[in-house]
Protein backbone atom coordinates (compact mmCIF):
# COMPACT_ATOMS: atom_id res chain seq x y z
CA UNK A 1 0.00 0.00 0.00
CA UNK A 2 2.83 2.37 0.95
CA UNK A 3 4.63 1.47 -2.29
CA UNK A 4 1.52 2.18 -4.36
CA UNK A 5 1.18 5.58 -2.69
CA UNK A 6 4.87 6.31 -3.37
CA UNK A 7 4.54 5.33 -7.05
CA UNK A 8 1.27 7.25 -7.48
CA UNK A 9 2.62 10.47 -5.94
CA UNK A 10 5.87 10.20 -7.90
CA UNK A 11 3.94 9.62 -11.14
CA UNK A 12 1.70 12.61 -10.42
CA UNK A 13 4.72 14.89 -9.91
CA UNK A 14 6.48 13.38 -12.95
CA UNK A 15 3.41 13.87 -15.17
CA UNK A 16 3.03 17.48 -14.05
CA UNK A 17 6.74 18.07 -14.78
CA UNK A 18 6.19 16.62 -18.28
CA UNK A 19 3.13 18.86 -18.76
CA UNK A 20 4.96 22.00 -17.59
CA UNK A 21 8.11 21.28 -19.62
CA UNK A 22 5.84 20.77 -22.64
CA UNK A 23 4.36 24.21 -21.97
CA UNK A 24 7.82 25.79 -21.80
CA UNK A 25 9.12 24.01 -24.92
CA UNK A 26 6.01 24.46 -27.10
CA UNK A 27 4.37 27.69 -25.91
CA UNK A 28 7.34 29.70 -24.64
CA UNK A 29 10.18 28.48 -26.87
CA UNK A 30 7.88 27.90 -29.85
CA UNK A 31 9.32 24.48 -30.72
CA UNK A 32 7.38 21.59 -32.25
CA UNK A 33 5.57 19.33 -29.72
CA UNK A 34 7.76 16.44 -30.87
CA UNK A 35 10.67 18.08 -29.01
CA UNK A 36 8.87 18.11 -25.68
CA UNK A 37 8.16 14.35 -25.76
CA UNK A 38 11.74 13.68 -26.87
CA UNK A 39 13.10 15.89 -24.05
CA UNK A 40 11.19 14.25 -21.17
CA UNK A 41 11.96 10.73 -22.42
CA UNK A 42 15.68 11.38 -22.69
CA UNK A 43 15.91 13.16 -19.32
CA UNK A 44 13.76 10.54 -17.52
CA UNK A 45 15.88 7.70 -18.91
CA UNK A 46 19.06 9.36 -17.70
CA UNK A 47 17.60 9.97 -14.21
CA UNK A 48 16.24 6.43 -13.72
CA UNK A 49 19.51 4.72 -14.65
CA UNK A 50 21.69 7.14 -12.66
CA UNK A 51 19.44 6.82 -9.60
CA UNK A 52 19.14 3.01 -9.93
CA UNK A 53 22.94 2.70 -10.07
CA UNK A 54 23.55 5.11 -7.17
CA UNK A 55 21.03 3.34 -4.92
CA UNK A 56 21.72 -0.23 -6.11
CA UNK A 57 23.56 -2.97 -4.21
CA UNK A 58 26.99 -1.43 -5.07
CA UNK A 59 25.72 2.14 -4.85
CA UNK A 60 26.78 4.72 -2.33
CA UNK A 61 23.30 6.03 -1.58
CA UNK A 62 21.11 4.17 0.88
CA UNK A 63 17.41 4.87 0.38
CA UNK A 64 14.24 3.08 1.44
CA UNK A 65 12.27 0.89 -0.94
CA UNK A 66 9.47 3.47 -0.94
CA UNK A 67 11.87 6.30 -1.87
CA UNK A 68 13.34 4.17 -4.65
CA UNK A 69 9.85 3.50 -6.03
CA UNK A 70 8.87 7.16 -5.68
CA UNK A 71 11.77 8.24 -7.90
CA UNK A 72 12.04 5.33 -10.35
CA UNK A 73 8.63 3.76 -10.99
CA UNK A 74 6.91 6.98 -9.89
CA UNK A 75 8.65 10.17 -11.01
CA UNK A 76 10.64 8.78 -13.96
CA UNK A 77 7.75 6.59 -15.07
CA UNK A 78 5.37 9.54 -14.96
CA UNK A 79 7.84 11.92 -16.60
CA UNK A 80 8.48 9.67 -19.59
CA UNK A 81 5.78 8.50 -21.95
CA UNK A 82 5.72 5.76 -24.54
CA UNK A 83 2.11 6.46 -25.53
CA UNK A 84 2.60 10.07 -26.67
CA UNK A 85 5.74 9.05 -28.60
CA UNK A 86 3.84 6.24 -30.36
CA UNK A 87 0.89 8.54 -31.11
CA UNK A 88 3.19 11.24 -32.53
CA UNK A 89 4.83 8.60 -34.75
CA UNK A 90 1.45 7.29 -35.91
CA UNK A 91 0.16 10.80 -36.69
CA UNK A 92 3.29 11.50 -38.78
CA UNK A 93 2.70 8.23 -40.67
CA UNK A 94 -0.97 9.17 -41.04
CA UNK A 95 0.08 12.45 -42.67
CA UNK A 96 2.29 10.44 -45.02
CA UNK A 97 5.55 11.79 -43.57
CA UNK A 98 7.14 8.39 -43.00
CA UNK A 99 10.76 9.65 -43.19
CA UNK A 100 10.16 12.00 -40.24
CA UNK A 101 8.15 9.30 -38.41
CA UNK A 102 11.01 6.81 -38.70
CA UNK A 103 13.68 9.42 -37.85
CA UNK A 104 11.69 10.58 -34.82
CA UNK A 105 10.95 7.15 -33.34
CA UNK A 106 14.45 5.76 -33.94
CA UNK A 107 16.22 8.86 -32.61
CA UNK A 108 14.07 9.26 -29.47
CA UNK A 109 14.42 5.56 -28.56
CA UNK A 110 18.13 5.64 -29.42
CA UNK A 111 18.83 8.86 -27.50
CA UNK A 112 16.86 7.60 -24.47
CA UNK A 113 18.90 4.40 -24.38
CA UNK A 114 22.11 6.43 -24.81
CA UNK A 115 21.05 8.77 -21.98
CA UNK A 116 20.35 5.77 -19.72
CA UNK A 117 23.78 4.34 -20.56
CA UNK A 118 25.40 7.71 -19.79
CA UNK A 119 23.52 7.82 -16.48
CA UNK A 120 24.83 4.36 -15.67
CA UNK A 121 28.44 5.34 -16.50
CA UNK A 122 28.30 8.59 -14.51
CA UNK A 123 26.74 6.95 -11.46
CA UNK A 124 29.15 3.99 -11.56
CA UNK A 125 31.99 6.45 -11.57
CA UNK A 126 30.53 8.27 -8.57
CA UNK A 127 30.11 4.93 -6.80
CA UNK A 128 33.81 4.16 -7.25
CA UNK A 129 35.09 7.49 -5.89
CA UNK A 130 36.91 7.08 -2.56
CA UNK A 131 34.77 7.89 0.46
CA UNK A 132 35.88 11.11 2.16
CA UNK A 133 36.46 10.97 5.88
Amino acid at each position, binding site marked *: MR*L*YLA*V*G*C*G*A*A*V*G*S*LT*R*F*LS*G*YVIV*SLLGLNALWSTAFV*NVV*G*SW*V*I*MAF*ATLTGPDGRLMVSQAAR*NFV*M*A*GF*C*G*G*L*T*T*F*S*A*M*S*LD*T*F*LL*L*FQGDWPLAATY*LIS*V*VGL*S*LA*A*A*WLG*YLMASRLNRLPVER
Partner: protein
Amino acid sequence: MTLAACALVLIGGFLGGVCRFFLSGVVGRGVGETFPWGTLAVNVSGALAIGAFAGAARSVGGIFASDLVRDLVVVGLFGGYTTVSSFCLQTLNLGLDGEGRLAAFNVVASAALCVLFVALGFWAVVWVVSSTTWVVGSATGAAG
Protein backbone atom coordinates in the same frame (compact mmCIF):
# COMPACT_ATOMS: atom_id res chain seq x y z
CA MET B 1 -2.15 26.36 -18.95
CA THR B 2 -4.44 26.73 -15.98
CA LEU B 3 -4.45 25.52 -12.40
CA ALA B 4 -7.35 23.20 -13.28
CA ALA B 5 -5.29 21.64 -16.08
CA CYS B 6 -2.38 21.06 -13.68
CA ALA B 7 -4.69 19.45 -11.13
CA LEU B 8 -6.16 17.14 -13.79
CA VAL B 9 -2.66 16.11 -14.93
CA LEU B 10 -1.72 15.35 -11.28
CA ILE B 11 -4.83 13.19 -10.79
CA GLY B 12 -4.42 11.38 -14.12
CA GLY B 13 -0.70 10.86 -13.53
CA PHE B 14 -1.33 9.40 -10.07
CA LEU B 15 -3.89 6.90 -11.39
CA GLY B 16 -1.75 6.03 -14.42
CA GLY B 17 1.32 5.36 -12.28
CA VAL B 18 -0.62 3.15 -9.87
CA CYS B 19 -2.17 1.17 -12.77
CA ARG B 20 1.28 0.67 -14.32
CA PHE B 21 2.82 -0.48 -11.04
CA PHE B 22 -0.07 -2.89 -10.52
CA LEU B 23 -0.11 -4.37 -14.05
CA SER B 24 3.66 -4.66 -14.46
CA GLY B 25 3.80 -6.35 -11.04
CA VAL B 26 1.04 -8.82 -11.90
CA VAL B 27 2.56 -9.69 -15.30
CA GLY B 28 6.09 -9.86 -13.85
CA ARG B 29 5.01 -12.24 -11.08
CA GLY B 30 2.97 -14.27 -13.57
CA VAL B 31 5.51 -14.89 -16.31
CA GLY B 32 8.80 -14.18 -14.54
CA GLU B 33 11.06 -11.14 -14.43
CA THR B 34 13.79 -12.27 -16.87
CA PHE B 35 12.22 -10.44 -19.79
CA PRO B 36 10.31 -7.19 -19.00
CA TRP B 37 6.91 -8.45 -20.24
CA GLY B 38 5.18 -6.26 -17.65
CA THR B 39 6.51 -2.97 -19.06
CA LEU B 40 5.84 -4.18 -22.61
CA ALA B 41 2.22 -5.03 -21.67
CA VAL B 42 1.81 -1.58 -20.08
CA ASN B 43 3.23 0.31 -23.06
CA VAL B 44 1.30 -1.69 -25.67
CA SER B 45 -2.02 -1.38 -23.82
CA GLY B 46 -1.37 2.34 -23.27
CA ALA B 47 -0.67 2.71 -26.99
CA LEU B 48 -3.98 1.02 -27.84
CA ALA B 49 -5.79 3.35 -25.42
CA ILE B 50 -4.20 6.57 -26.69
CA GLY B 51 -4.89 5.52 -30.29
CA ALA B 52 -8.53 4.84 -29.46
CA PHE B 53 -8.79 8.22 -27.71
CA ALA B 54 -7.22 10.02 -30.67
CA GLY B 55 -9.67 8.22 -32.95
CA ALA B 56 -12.58 9.34 -30.78
CA ALA B 57 -11.30 12.93 -30.68
CA ARG B 58 -11.18 12.93 -34.46
CA SER B 59 -14.40 11.12 -35.33
CA VAL B 60 -16.68 11.89 -32.37
CA GLY B 61 -15.26 15.19 -31.15
CA GLY B 62 -17.26 16.62 -28.25
CA ILE B 63 -15.76 15.85 -24.85
CA PHE B 64 -13.06 13.69 -26.48
CA ALA B 65 -11.70 16.79 -28.19
CA SER B 66 -11.91 19.10 -25.16
CA ASP B 67 -8.65 20.39 -23.72
CA LEU B 68 -9.36 19.52 -20.08
CA VAL B 69 -10.41 15.92 -20.84
CA ARG B 70 -7.28 15.60 -22.95
CA ASP B 71 -5.12 16.89 -20.05
CA LEU B 72 -6.70 14.39 -17.64
CA VAL B 73 -6.78 11.33 -19.91
CA VAL B 74 -4.01 11.71 -22.50
CA VAL B 75 -1.38 13.77 -20.67
CA GLY B 76 -2.13 12.52 -17.15
CA LEU B 77 -3.56 8.99 -17.28
CA PHE B 78 -1.99 7.51 -20.45
CA GLY B 79 1.20 9.58 -20.12
CA GLY B 80 1.68 8.54 -16.50
CA TYR B 81 0.74 4.94 -17.30
CA THR B 82 3.24 4.32 -20.11
CA THR B 83 6.97 4.68 -19.57
CA VAL B 84 10.19 5.00 -21.54
CA SER B 85 12.43 5.13 -18.44
CA SER B 86 11.65 1.61 -17.18
CA PHE B 87 11.91 0.37 -20.76
CA CYS B 88 15.45 1.84 -21.02
CA LEU B 89 16.45 0.60 -17.56
CA GLN B 90 15.32 -2.96 -18.30
CA THR B 91 16.80 -2.98 -21.81
CA LEU B 92 20.20 -1.84 -20.50
CA ASN B 93 20.06 -4.36 -17.66
CA LEU B 94 19.42 -7.14 -20.19
CA GLY B 95 22.42 -5.89 -22.18
CA LEU B 96 24.64 -5.64 -19.06
CA ASP B 97 23.64 -9.21 -18.11
CA GLY B 98 24.92 -10.41 -21.49
CA GLU B 99 21.43 -10.86 -22.96
CA GLY B 100 22.07 -8.62 -25.97
CA ARG B 101 19.59 -10.41 -28.19
CA LEU B 102 16.77 -10.10 -25.67
CA ALA B 103 17.64 -6.40 -25.25
CA ALA B 104 17.46 -5.84 -29.00
CA PHE B 105 14.21 -7.81 -29.19
CA ASN B 106 12.73 -5.63 -26.43
CA VAL B 107 13.60 -2.42 -28.32
CA VAL B 108 12.22 -3.61 -31.67
CA ALA B 109 9.12 -5.25 -30.17
CA SER B 110 8.25 -2.24 -27.98
CA ALA B 111 8.62 0.33 -30.77
CA ALA B 112 6.86 -1.72 -33.46
CA LEU B 113 4.01 -3.02 -31.29
CA CYS B 114 3.27 0.38 -29.75
CA VAL B 115 2.96 2.17 -33.09
CA LEU B 116 0.91 -0.77 -34.44
CA PHE B 117 -1.46 -0.69 -31.46
CA VAL B 118 -1.93 3.09 -31.72
CA ALA B 119 -3.02 2.48 -35.32
CA LEU B 120 -5.31 -0.40 -34.28
CA GLY B 121 -6.99 1.65 -31.56
CA PHE B 122 -7.35 4.67 -33.84
CA TRP B 123 -8.82 2.81 -36.81
CA ALA B 124 -11.07 0.60 -34.66
CA VAL B 125 -12.76 3.65 -33.12
CA VAL B 126 -12.94 5.58 -36.40
CA TRP B 127 -14.45 2.51 -38.11
CA VAL B 128 -17.02 1.86 -35.36
CA VAL B 129 -18.06 5.51 -35.28
CA SER B 130 -18.33 5.81 -39.06
CA SER B 131 -20.42 2.64 -39.30
CA THR B 132 -22.94 3.75 -36.69
CA THR B 133 -25.49 6.31 -37.76
CA TRP B 134 -26.48 7.63 -34.33
CA VAL B 135 -23.30 9.62 -33.87
CA VAL B 136 -23.30 13.20 -35.00
CA GLY B 137 -19.60 13.72 -35.44
CA SER B 138 -17.26 16.27 -36.86
CA ALA B 139 -14.53 15.22 -39.24
CA THR B 140 -11.93 17.51 -37.75
CA GLY B 141 -12.63 16.82 -34.11
CA ALA B 142 -12.37 20.54 -33.45
CA ALA B 143 -16.09 20.94 -32.82
CA GLY B 144 -18.76 18.40 -32.11
